[in-house]
């Protein structure tokens, strides 16, 4: 039973970064900008947030007020991702640059930048920023007894502030996209910017909004990923930014489906990471390195799923095309 609880809670903790980042991609693409830089944005968000947490740990503020410190770190992650995404927005919207190349450039830049900064701060060779362990929400946070039952494992084993915030941001996305003026206008800009322009909507402003929101969510996603992995930040987010793009496509650019897709992918990720401790998986004896085989799983599933779903995808029609007022 406890293993089931473990799998569920692990799945959730891995689904959180996927969903946040995929929702970020969704905002950007609905505004008409392909945000390939999500991977890089995650790295920058995680980098800044981890240093923030380390600082709180050293100053004593963190251990004293763990969840307040965590909230600050989440905001730092979001804001730093937002600032980094400004680079993409400027290139894609003002300079009308190719968005794929712009995003790839940022992805190449971010990990290198992170390594340099990490070394500069921690000293040569110390590539990992450790995350303090007080950030976890435990029974003690609510003044309860620590237990070891099913519910204890299910809820508290991997409970971080990022999870409730992700749930909140999911509902915000759901309402914002389909119930508000902002969502309607944002989607119009990604589908038919000339139409939006002709009814007086500022396409450039909406696209900036889309990219910046995606930067905010991507940055938080970077922190959430680092927490989920649990072994500290070493200037990489393991391709999660790209996996999130696949989740977004699988989720048809819609919030509810994106949430479903991220849970689906996270489950495979958990199976991949913890295959040896999950009893009902085939042991594949005789194979030398079966864990590698399992670790391939989320990526193989991504490819297979995309082959079957991309045909019916409802991608925003104008995404990736720089908007120029002059062309009709």
């Amino acid at each position, binding site marked *: 039973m406890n293993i089931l609880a473990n799998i569920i809670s692990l799945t959730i903790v891995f689904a959180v970064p996927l969903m946040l980042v995929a929702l970020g991609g969704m905002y950007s693409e609905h505004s008409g900008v392909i945000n390939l830089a999500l991977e890089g944005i995650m790295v920058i968000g995680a980098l800044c947030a981890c240093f923030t947490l380390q600082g709180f740990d050293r100053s004593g503020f963190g251990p004293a007020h763990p969840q307040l410190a965590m909230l600050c770190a989440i905001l730092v992650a979001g804001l730093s991702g937002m600032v980094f995404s400004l680079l993409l927005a400027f290139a894609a919207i003002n300079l009308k640059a190719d968005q794929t190349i712009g995003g790839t450039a940022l992805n190449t830049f971010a990990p290198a930048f992170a390594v340099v900064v990490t070394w500069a701060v921690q000293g040569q060779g110390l590539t990992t920023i450790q995350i303090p362990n007080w950030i976890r929400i435990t029974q003690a946070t609510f003044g309860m007894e620590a237990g070891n039952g099913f519910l204890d494992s299910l809820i508290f084993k991997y409970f971080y502030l990022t999870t409730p915030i992700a749930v909140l941001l999911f509902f915000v996305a759901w309402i914002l996209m389909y119930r508000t*003026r902002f969502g309607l*206008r944002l*989607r*119009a800009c990604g589908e*038919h910017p000339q*139409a939006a322009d002709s009814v*007086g909507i500022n396409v450039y402003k909406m696209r900036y909004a889309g990219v910046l929101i995606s930067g905010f969510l991507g940055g938080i996603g970077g922190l959430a990923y680092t927490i989920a992995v649990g072994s500290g930040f070493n200037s990489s987010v393991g391709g999660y930014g790209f996996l999130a793009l696949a989740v977004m496509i699988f989720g048809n650019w819609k919030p509810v489906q994106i949430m479903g897709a991220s849970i689906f992918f996270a489950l495979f990720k958990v199976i991949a990471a913890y295959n040896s401790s999950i009893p009902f998986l085939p042991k594949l004896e005789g194979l030398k390195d079966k864990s590698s085989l399992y670790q391939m799983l989320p990526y193989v599933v991504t490819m297979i799923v995309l082959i079957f779903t991309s045909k019916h995808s409802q991608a925003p029609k104008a995404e990736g095309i720089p908007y120029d007022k002059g062309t009709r």
Partner: protein
Amino acid sequence: MAQDYVIEMLHITKEFPGIKANDDITLQLKRGEIHALLGENGAGKSTLMSVLFGLYQAEQGTIKKDGKEVQIKDPNDANRLGIGMVHQHFKLVECFSVLDNIILGVEDTKNGFLQYASARKKVMDLSERYGLKVDPDAIVSDISVGMQQRVEILKMLYRDNEVLIFDEPTAVLTPQEIDELMEIMRGFRKEGKSILFITHKLAEIMAVADRCSVLRKGKYIGTVDIANTTKEELSRMMVGRDVQLEVQKKESKPGETILAVRDLTVPSRTHNNNAVKNVSFDVRAGEIVCIAGIEGNGQTELIYGITGLEKITGGTVTLNGKDITHASIRERSKAGMSHIPEDRHKHGLVLDYPLEANMVLQRYWDPKFQNKGIIKYGEVRKYANRLIEQFDVRSGQGPITIARSMSGGNQQKAIIAREIDKDPQLLVAVQPTRGLDVGAIEYIHSQLVAQRDAGKAVLLVSLELDEVMKLPDRILVMYEGEIVGEFNPKETTVEELGLYMAGAKKQS
């Protein structure tokens, strides 16, 4: 008392790099009139209207609304002044509902949430009052072009606009829808709204407009009262010379069969039934055969099947005695088939290529134009220049003009030049005059007749009854994927054709 003008555009000049699109143009719109703006493609009509709607800024000139000078910097300004526009290419978000499209940009919100109830009521009221039938919850990509246009009109009414600009609204409509639109426009006039109606179809101007201003090559030619003018005078003002509105042709002398279509069946891309069902017909050398019918009755798919754009599921196509049922498009082209496609942007031209490259699209592999895989650009340039001269294709920079920047009429001329110069046995022309002005139509009709007289077989598809009656030697009417009648244009009437096109009658 001074005239009651609702809009005055005085001495408007607008330049684009290399071209003066509007040169000192003055246009005065009276309150409650339908004012037609007539001109050839590229005469500057759309530019002038874009200036009025705030999409472009004029370099010189002033705009007055109700006698007061105003600045229109963007569509929001135009909207505040009560000016609305139905664009030639609809500005609708295809995956949105009709209602979402109408409210976009002027949404009502309460506590940040969109309020649909009041918007829906206002749309339904307007829809009823003006006879603009729409389904507010339908998704735009699912509805007909006619209904999409009604959505565009409702967008203007929803914003309480009183000056309505229609940019070539009839180009995309069927004859029935055009009649409906005319009725709707008369309704607006009765309500005191003022209408600017851009078109180059003389019959529509004569039918609905009160006055007409004519532009030619960016210059203002004059304004006439429709009551005191004729089609001939309007076309002379527009083109600057006398235009032959009737097709001049001699009796046809059909020769042997060039194209033989037998039991052709083509599947539909949009529904599960076949779009073309067991269709058989011949086209002989020296005749023009026209497939007539209301849009969407299988004409497009029939041509796709004949030209190889779509795989057919039954029947045979024979060209000059050679079975080309399963031939590739290049093989068909080599066998003597030329195709002037329905959608010149999708199938006719590579829009971002220069004109010269478009001219050799089907022949670049010919040893004349390449040597061991390297294109001989000198030869291509020479060839393109010859076609440009011979067919009078006008463009900004000659052979190196990017196709996208050319006017519709000249794009079509370029395609016709390329297709005719191949010296085909069979010329397939699908709506070759769609959206073109009388000068260009006259030219294209004369080219098709010349091909016929040179002993070529011509297969024409047309939705314009005018063209169907004037150009061909034989008419085949298509209804729901079948040929329901064959007519001699000299012995039939528009009314009779209409009955067959609507499916009310069928020849057995």
